């Protein structure tokens, strides 16, 4: 999640533009997961990886042409994709469309997208308040979001009702 946020930190947009960018990233992530989940079997051998990266690049080009959004967002999508997806050693299992695993898989991806959007918006909100309202200079540079990320990671790791 944090690695997926890093590319967005290169171009610190305002709250609304960040919201638009992160909405696009999450929608694109869900679309990509659905697309490759259903078409994965059509990519023979090791052609899945090149196909995935070509898919990312084509979309990055299209979005840049239409909206001038820098292509760093494809890195966020890459980090948010399931780890097993690009693992050559993992073979796609045959799963029935109406089995219980399908809704669970998509529910996990939906949660990942919503969690990422929440994380990015929290970071942006903190930066907007700290930099513009309070005038804390450390938020002019990467150290600001890294310190906030450290605090959030600490809180996440030590949540009172977390799994032991």
């Amino acid at each position, binding site marked *: 999640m944090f690695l997926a946020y890093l*590319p967005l930190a290169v171009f610190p947009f305002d709250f609304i533009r960040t919201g638009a960018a992160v909405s696009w990233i999450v929608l694109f992530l869900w679309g990509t997961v659905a697309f490759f989940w259903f078409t994965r079997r059509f990519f023979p051998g090791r052609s899945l990886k090149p196909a995935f*990266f070509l898919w990312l690049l084509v979309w990055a080009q299209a979005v840049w042409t239409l909206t001038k959004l820098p292509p760093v967002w494809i890195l966020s999508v890459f980090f948010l994709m399931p780890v097993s997806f690009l693992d050559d050693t993992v073979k796609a299992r045959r799963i029935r469309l109406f089995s219980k695993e399908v809704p669970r898989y998509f529910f996990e991806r939906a949660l990942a997208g919503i969690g990422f959007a929440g994380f990015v918006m929290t970071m942006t909100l903190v930066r907007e308040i700290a930099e513009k309202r309070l005038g804390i200079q450390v938020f002019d*540079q990467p150290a600001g979001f890294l310190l906030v990320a450290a605090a959030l*990671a600490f809180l996440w790791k030590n949540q009172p009702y977390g799994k032991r």
Partner: protein
Amino acid sequence: MYFLIITFGLMLAMRGSRPARLEKPGEGGVRVLRGAADFFLTVSLTLALWTVLVACEATQTTAREYAILGFGIFNYLLSRYQKKTEVFFLAAATVSFVISVKQADLLNGLSLAWAVSAGMALFQTCFLGLRYKLLFSRVPPSIKGWPVLCLLAAFISLTLWSLGRLVF
């Protein structure tokens, strides 16, 4: 550009290459330097090719219109040839594109690529050294993992920023 150095430096430090054993910092340091040199050469080669394509009348429009696609495919092939990770390829393609947007001139672009690669190497070396030192420190379990890594990155970022302001 400073954001580019820190964010991509951290990204490559975490996922840029096959993880070296923390117990052998010398081996990791060599890998970092080699990685930075590869990164610089990859970005430079991409920028040089792009400049040539933009200079030719026949390819000018296509090169400008499909810059991201071209950078991406070229970097993908280069990183496959060098057996690099996917993060390396995506980072090289993105940095090449950002530099090409900021600097149309090849020499300025190359010097920016050098500055970014050297900055990333410095960041990753400091990060590796501090992670090695942490092995001999009593870090409380509650901040082990991402919290302490983010703190380290923040401190390195602050230090490099201060050094940069002193020098330039």
